């Protein structure tokens, strides 16, 4: 079943009573956005046209350090680079918060601040948690033409790791570079 078809099926099981986002599936055009990554520097998705982009949407800065998703991806940057893929983290935290977080984790990739209007970009990707006021923990791999080629919604409390991203990048570039 295609992930698009899967996205049309209502959720069942224990979580069915909870409103759960259906994030933008593979095959969708990735919504364009421009967000601040530092107090005076903005980043636009279109800057990456021509190469794959990984959007790592996450609930909040400052998870416990050894299990932190952004700290993990920071270590995997050389693997992403083998696919020429750019990584962008997105949460509703402010640029000031992102700056302190990135410095503490020694992060070498941009964290975009979906701060004003709050969660606007996450909503475009259907990855905003109404009520919680935070983003989902969701991953999007966008191909060099700006189409979503893979997306994954993780339970908020579970760090999804990087294996799914690398598999998606393998498919995109047609080979395993692990």
């Amino acid at each position, binding site marked *: 079943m295609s992930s698009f078809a899967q996205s049309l099926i209502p959720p069942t099981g224990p979580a069915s009573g909870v409103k759960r986002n259906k994030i933008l599936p593979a095959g969708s055009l990735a919504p364009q956005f421009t967000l601040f990554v530092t107090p005076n520097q903005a980043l636009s998705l279109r800057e990456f046209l021509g190469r794959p982009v990984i959007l790592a949407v996450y609930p909040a800065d400052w998870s416990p350090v050894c299990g932190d998703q952004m700290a993990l991806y920071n*270590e995997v940057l050389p693997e992403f680079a083998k696919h020429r893929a750019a990584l962008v983290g997105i949460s509703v935290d402010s640029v000031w918060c992102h700056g302190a977080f990135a410095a503490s984790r020694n992060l070498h990739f941009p964290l975009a601040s979906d701060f004003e209007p709050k969660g606007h970009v996450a909503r475009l990707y259907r990855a905003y948690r109404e009520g919680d006021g935070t983003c989902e923990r969701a991953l999007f791999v966008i191909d060099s033409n700006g189409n979503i080629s893979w997306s994954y919604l993780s339970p908020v409390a579970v760090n999804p*790791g990087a294996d799914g991203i690398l598999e998606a990048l393998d498919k995109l570039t047609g080979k395993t570079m692990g």
Partner: protein
Amino acid sequence: MNRLLVPVNAHDHIQGGADAEWTLVEYGDYECPVCGEAYQIVKQLQEHLRERLRFVFRNFPLRQIHRMAEFAAETAEFASAHGRFWEMHDLLFANQEDLERELLFRLTTKIGLSADQLQRSLASEIYRDRIDLDFRGGIRSGVNGTPTFFINGVRHDGSFDLDTLLRAIAEAV
């Protein structure tokens, strides 16, 4: 469900026999304080389960947040090249709070190996590829932080206190 993509093999650091009922694989980082706690738990598991458990340790240094993790892992690999991996493994975790280059040399001398030789190994990074191989295999298997455990090849997503791990091991097929 995440599965271990790199089967236990001859290059691994292994405690216990291949005929053990359960194999516990840990991806760990010598500078990670949570791995330091997990180290004690694994020791207790081994006491409980004895020869029924095989334990494998693989390197997963978080180099960008733990300044000494890579050096510590390379020191353990250096000891391994001399057949002394587990001694160094124990010493590194026992001295985790004082990890500095000087300490690595002292521990190396303590187990009767040459600090000069370690110095040359660290300078030439000869064990770096070995550690990268562990790291990349871990990433592909869904390691999402340290420590990450696999029980009989399946990632353990629960907490890793003794009771939880014992229960998860008992339920593993």
